[in-house]
């Protein structure tokens, strides 16, 4: 007995009280005795026993529920904390209800201070944060919402927020669970990659990226049998701009035209700086007709636009544009570039400030008859004969006669798989031909004969894209050299040494020569210094001319 009872009371009542006191003290297993008899007190005792059972079961269940709840909370906490990304739950009033350690780290604010504070106060743009919060509540979810978190130290973290509402038992929105993915490093990497893909002067995609884009687009075009066009655009008389207004003005024009083209281009077009004053525009899903329309629009826009060249001055420029569209024959990045370049050359030859489509079917490994033929006829002009080297070989190119330099150029084209001289120049190739041994000898002789005088002792030939004596576009530029150090064989990027020619000029005199042998003897080296061995193609070229002094 735990309590004193009135001795006069019925023992059954005393037992009942005793059981009830035990319940009160936490002993829910206490039970009273129920006799077989019919007394009402037995009925009460039976009822107390049942209530005890129910109470015991209820308390046990309550304890189990508490345990489950505690486990669930620990589980939820571990799930929240296992995330390396900041996690936060926000009430419908916009107050932070819970955060994980990552959220503490990214804000630099202790957990106790974060909880209960306004969530938007930790972003650089609280209004934008609120807008995203409202959107999440309105739609039930929000994905990749960009925000910037400010650490107490001032450090900023670029994040993408993903959030969804959570509901209470009644199904009503109770708050927002939000996770922030830190993309600062990724964004930096993207920026670095973006920077590496851009041309420093113009901001356009650079040469490397251009080819990467073009390759992807060609694969896509082939896969879906869709048209793809390429514009190759060249600023007319750009050298004149540089010479007249200075290189800074030239740079300003390049920047200006780049900006103009980017603005004019469609969203899916890619404007790239190919090199120098050449700009390419990749036109996905664009056939030749539309490409010509776009090219003409760009040309006309450039022509009308006054370009700021600094100092309050403006300059007008014009562009020539070559247009090429993919086809069965032109279905590689280089092929499309070549085709656009041929078209550009044609546009230049046609007088500039114009657009020209690529129309000539060009077989692999041969040069464009139009280009070379045109050049050949120009080279036959008297004024060019005057400029051609004093030492000259005439060759037979099967049915076409050409100068020795052109023959070499043709060989270079074949070797480099080019189509015309324009491409040679675009590859950065300048051929300079001279005869060092002769120069050496002549310099000595000339100095002995006329000491102190400047003598014409040789001719240097450039394949360049400049105006020479009215021959516009790409051509051979020759000029005499006077100093010994000029008299060397050089080819920028691809340096061609001509030991064979140098060694045996006399032997060529009126003697048919298989040029392949000569080409083999050329000792061509590439820009890395490795020998370039011609694969085949000049077997049909025969040297039949003679040296003309």
């Amino acid at each position, binding site marked *: 007995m735990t309590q004193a009872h009135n001795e006069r009371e019925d023992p059954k009542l005393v037992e009942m009280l005793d059981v009830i006191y035990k319940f009160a003290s936490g002993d829910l297993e206490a039970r009273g005795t129920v006799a077989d008899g019919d007394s*009402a007190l037995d009925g009460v005792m*039976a009822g107390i026993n049942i209530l005890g059972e129910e109470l015991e079961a209820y308390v046990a269940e309550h304890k189990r529920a508490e345990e489950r709840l505690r486990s669930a909370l620990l589980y939820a906490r571990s799930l929240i904390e296992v995330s390396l990304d900041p996690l936060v739950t926000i009430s419908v009033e916009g107050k932070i209800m819970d955060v994980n350690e990552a959220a503490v780290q990214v804000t630099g604010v202790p957990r106790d201070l974060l909880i209960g504070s306004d969530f938007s106060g930790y972003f650089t743009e609280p209004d934008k944060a609120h807008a995203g919060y409202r959107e999440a509540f309105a739609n039930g979810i929000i994905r990749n919402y960009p925000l910037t978190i400010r650490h107490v130290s001032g450090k900023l973290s670029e994040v993408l927020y993903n959030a969804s509402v959570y509901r209470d038992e009644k199904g009503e929105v109770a708050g927002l669970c939000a996770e922030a993915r830190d993309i600062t490093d990724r964004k930096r990497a993207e920026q670095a990659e973006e920077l590496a893909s851009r041309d420093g002067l113009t901001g356009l995609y650079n040469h490397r990226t251009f080819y990467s884009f073009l390759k992807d687009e060609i694969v896509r075009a082939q896969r879906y049998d869709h048209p793809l066009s390429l514009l190759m655009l060249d600023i007319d008389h750009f050298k004149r701009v540089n010479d007249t207004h200075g290189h800074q003005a030239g740079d300003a024009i390049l920047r200006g035209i780049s900006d103009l083209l980017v603005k004019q281009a469609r969203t899916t077009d890619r404007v790239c700086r190919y090199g120098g004053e050449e700009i390419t525009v990749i036109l996905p899903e664009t056939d030749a007709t539309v490409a010509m329309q776009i090219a003409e629009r760009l040309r006309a826009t450039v022509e009308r636009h006054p370009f700021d060249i600094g100092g309050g001055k403006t300059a007008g420029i014009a562009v020539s544009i070559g247009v090429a569209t993919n086809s069965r024959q032109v279905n590689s990045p280089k092929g499309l570039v070549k085709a656009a370049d041929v078209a550009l050359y044609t546009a230049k030859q046609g007088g500039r400030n114009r657009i020209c489509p690529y129309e000539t079917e060009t077989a692999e490994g041969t040069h464009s008859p139009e280009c070379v033929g045109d050049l050949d006829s120009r080279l036959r002009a008297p004024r060019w004969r005057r400029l051609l080297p004093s030492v000259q070989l005439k060759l037979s190119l099967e049915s076409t006669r050409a100068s020795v330099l052109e023959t070499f150029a043709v060989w270079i084209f074949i070797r480099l798989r080019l189509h015309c001289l324009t491409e040679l120049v675009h590859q950065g190739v300048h051929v300079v031909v001279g005869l060092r041994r002769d120069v050496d000898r002549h310099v000595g002789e000339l100095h002995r004969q006329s000491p102190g005088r400047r003598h014409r002792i040789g001719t240097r030939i450039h394949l360049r894209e400049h105006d020479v004596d009215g021959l516009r576009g790409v051509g051979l530029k020759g000029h005499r050299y006077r100093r010994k150090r000029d008299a060397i064989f050089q080819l920028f990027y691809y340096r061609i040494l001509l030991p064979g020619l140098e060694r045996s000029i006399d032997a060529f005199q009126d003697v048919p020569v298989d040029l392949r042998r000569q080409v083999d003897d050329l000792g061509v080296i590439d820009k890395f210094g490795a020998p370039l061995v011609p694969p085949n193609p000049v077997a049909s070229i025969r040297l039949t001319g003679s040296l003309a002094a």
Partner: protein
Amino acid sequence: MESEQTSRVARLWLGDDGIVRIIHVTGAEVTLEDAMETMAAYLKLNKGKRRPLFVDTKTMKSLAREARKYYAGEEAAKVASAAALIVETPVSRVLGNFYLGLSNPRLPSRLFSSEDEALEWLKGSSSDAGAQ
């Protein structure tokens, strides 16, 4: 006798009226095991047929919580159509009322102090069930 079965705490038999009687022994303290044994005996008796139950609890001394829940549960409801509980003593009334009040039995159940009334009700509920 196939129409009669026994368990540790009760005797069961099937009357000509199609009602199964369950008469608890004097001073029966029914545990879960007892309840299950009685249910097994009932299943033998009714041979798969759903019948009304006449349960005399007058002499029952206690009914464990688990046993109460078992009788009130799905299993009993599947094999019996209705249950009339005969209560007379204060103890049996308390047990019966707690059974009805707390356990919320699935099969139609009522407390009776009169056996005749109980049988009448069972017959009525049996014919209702038959009519359905």
